[in-house]
């Protein structure tokens, strides 16, 4: 079950994107970011040990790294996808609770994945895992429906912090 919760503007800013990124945006972009973030900020009542997570990345090594990090934080039920189309197909075939996707992938990009999954009406948390952290790309990702952003390099504590925002404690 997924439920929404209303949070203060300050909490949204602290949770979703770095403060410096937000503060350097124009007023127009700030309003857009807040509106976009608020609409995608959802919690899941599932615990990590029962969650099914889809990991999409064209790098086999990066998928293994992410899966090891997921295992270390208590998530063991993981599906892999090596490109954007595989990710969309896997989402349609499996009841996943969260998606971690890279940005640059063959077939379809992470942005395409987010856009198509949100078009189905799904509100599951989607975390973009990427080195692309420029403001314009973050805005595009949030507008498409990304729930959060995890920039490479990251360690298991960084991943845990991102996942914990969206799962039952």
């Amino acid at each position, binding site marked *: 079950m997924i439920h929404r919760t209303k949070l203060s503007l300050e909490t949204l800013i602290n949770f979703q994107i770095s403060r*410096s990124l937000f503060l*350097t945006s124009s007023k127009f972009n700030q309003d857009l970011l807040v509106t976009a973030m608020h609409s995608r900020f959802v919690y899941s009542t599932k615990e990590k040990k029962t969650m099914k997570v889809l990991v999409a990345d064209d*790098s*086999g*090594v*990066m998928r*293994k*790294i992410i899966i*090891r990090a997921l295992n270390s934080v208590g998530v063991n039920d993981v599906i892999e996808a090596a490109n954007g189309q595989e990710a969309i197909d896997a989402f349609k075939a499996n009841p996943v609770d969260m998606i971690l996707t890279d940005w*640059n992938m063959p077939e379809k990009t992470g942005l395409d994945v987010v856009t198509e999954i949100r078009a189905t009406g799904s509100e599951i948390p989607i975390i973009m895992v*990427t*080195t*692309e*952290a*420029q403001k314009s790309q973050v805005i595009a990702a949030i507008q498409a429906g990304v729930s959060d952003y995890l*920039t*490479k*390099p*990251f*360690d298991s504590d*960084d991943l845990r912090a991102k996942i914990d925002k969206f799962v039952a404690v």
Partner: protein
Amino acid sequence: MSVALAPKSNESKVPAYDNFIATFAVCTKKVFSTMLGWDVVIDQQTKSKGFLAKYDVSGIIGFSGAVRGTLVVSCAAEMTYSAAESFLGSRPNEITDDIVDLVGELTNMIGGSSKDRLGISGIELGLPAVISGIGHRVSFQPSAHVEILHFNCDAGPFTVEIGFRLPTGK
């Protein structure tokens, strides 16, 4: 030889030369520390054109736009085996597809985080490529400024080579 740490820049203008190089040094340390838990140090910094790589695997990624250049990360095979063991849990004894993938990812992360830290708008990163083979040569155009950061760690040495041309012509 120590390299001054570069503070993150929020300005869009091109930073000073030393700050530009130091950014790659800081980001390299962060990538290895965060992803591998390795403490890597810089033994020396040199300049060279037509550098003959001493190592076995090189990751290469280009950047264009506001700053044009190429980043090359060169590693000895043994060092990549240790990295693979840290990432994947098992140690290979030859350069596998996973090793190639791993070096490409490390290069991508160093390039991507450096680009982000530089804070210069209009820089685009290319796709990483990897060359494997003892004694391979990575050369830059004569007009490029080339800086080589010679790193060392418990798993062995590696280099981060930045060949670039700043828009000011410096």
